[in-house]
């Protein structure tokens, strides 16, 4: 217990002594991890949004809200008969409601105000060839009881392109920043060991174990990394709120581009682990020169 108190005290003293360097370290860790986390968040959103458009599903036929059993059966019959349609799947109001609940699971009020009846049924259709999408669309737009046929594939491609690009650029930036944060932490730890070189000398002289000497410095690095990660997490959460706002007011195409609190927490843990790792790595490198002897 007294040992723990010793470590805590020494770590805090050292953090305060190099306040400016410590802050620089924390800020770079925060920015780089916010970039990392932001990329992960956007990726998650895009993954969710594009998942239903996989396996060749190119278009979705939305029925009128009041479309009757007969009209639905008619569309189904025509889909079955259509040679250009490889396969399709019917989504009942119940299916649509479940999906709605999944998308807006963080907003219970919205789910509360929605009933299965207020949602349209739909068919998700995979044509035999992607090129036939437009033809199929035209054929079904005019069928009675059909409200709208959407063919988002082009936009989806565009979105995937953009996210891929964002991913490369931001990852590169994040890696550079992460490297510089390791460098800053190494420097902070070097300064800290230099400021305490007399203590270290005496400690080694009287036979303090190597870990006893190292732990306060490693804790110092860890704290910097973790605080940086904490700030990054805050930024990521802000981004999540922005995304959620955007999705809420968006068109049908964008529904499904959602992100849940669980996703954000997962990303947060990921960011925290990297932050802590960066801090400890920095302190290990920073300590190497001083303690080997």
């Amino acid at each position, binding site marked *: 217990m007294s040992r723990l108190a*010793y470590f805590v005290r020494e770590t805090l003293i050292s953090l305060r002594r190099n306040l400016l360097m410590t802050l620089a370290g924390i800020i770079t860790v925060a920015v780089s991890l916010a970039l990392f986390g932001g990329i992960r968040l956007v990726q998650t959103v895009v993954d969710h949004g594009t998942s239903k458009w996989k396996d060749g599903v190119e278009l979705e036929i939305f029925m009128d809200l009041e479309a009757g059993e007969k009209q639905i059966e008619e569309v189904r019959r025509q889909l079955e008969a259509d040679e250009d349609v490889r396969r399709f799947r019917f989504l009942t109001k119940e299916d649509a409601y479940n999906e709605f609940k999944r998308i807006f699971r963080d907003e219970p009020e919205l789910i509360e105000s929605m009933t299965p009846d207020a949602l349209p049924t739909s068919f998700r259709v995979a044509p035999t060839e992607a090129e036939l999408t437009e033809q199929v669309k035209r054929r079904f737009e005019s069928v009675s009881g059909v409200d709208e046929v959407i063919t988002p594939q082009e936009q989806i491609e565009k979105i995937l392109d953009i996210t891929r690009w964002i991913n490369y650029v931001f990852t590169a930036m994040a890696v550079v920043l992460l490297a510089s944060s390791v460098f800053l932490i190494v420097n902070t730890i070097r300064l800290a060991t230099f400021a305490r070189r007399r203590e270290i000398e*005496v400690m080694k002289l009287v*036979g*303090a174990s190597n870990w*006893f000497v190292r732990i306060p410095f490693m804790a110092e690095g860890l704290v910097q990394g973790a605080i940086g990660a904490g700030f990054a997490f805050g930024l990521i959460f802000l981004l999540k709120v922005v995304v959620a706002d955007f999705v809420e007011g968006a068109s049908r195409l964008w529904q499904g581009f959602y992100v849940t609190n669980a996703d954000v927490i997962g990303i947060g843990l990921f960011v925290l682990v990297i932050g802590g790792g960066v801090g400890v790595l920095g302190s290990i490198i920073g300590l190497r020169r001083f303690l080997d002897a």
Partner: protein
Amino acid sequence: MIRFENVTKVYKGDVAALRDVSVEINKGEFVFLVGPSGSGKSTFLKLLLRDEVATEGRVLVAGRDIARLGAWKVPNLRRNIGCVFQDYKLLPNKTVYENVAFALEVIGRPKHIIRTQVPQILDLVGLSKKADSFPTELSGGEQQRVSIARAFVNRPLILLADEPTGNLDPATTVGIMRLLDRINRTGTTVVMATHDQRIVDAMRRRVLELDHGQLVRDQARGVYGVGT
């Protein structure tokens, strides 16, 4: 307690600091290590602390070849060897009490032991009244007493002193030597490197003389400069 077997230490750049030194120091002995600057006295002490490792030969402490200790066991060796230096190596931002307590704190001794042992040792070195003073408020002799207290508080088997009186006037030196003698009488082996002829002559203890890295004299009740 301490044994050097044909120890040679060569530093980088082919500087031979010790050449084929063999010597045995028994438990409870008081030994002076004399010789001019650069004769190898400091290297002798560094080898004992495993600050350096012998190039050839073996250094044994309490029967164990210390070159073969794992890095994680070196702290254990040092807990059994107290060290005193010419420049005291006290921490300026800690009081006398805290300086001594620090030595116990960092090897993980519990608080209640620290609270009883530190006052005891300060009493032994005659500094009970200065427990709350900072090193800069003390005379050289007093600072060296604190440093001895710190080296001895953990009751090591061996006390190494590297020119402990180098910065002190003759009167103060006598006091420090009395203290080291007292510590020696508790059964602690004391090895003291020194230039101070008067001390060696007055104490009449075993003298090891080094010259250019070689052991040129080992005399049971010696004086500083016999034959020179």
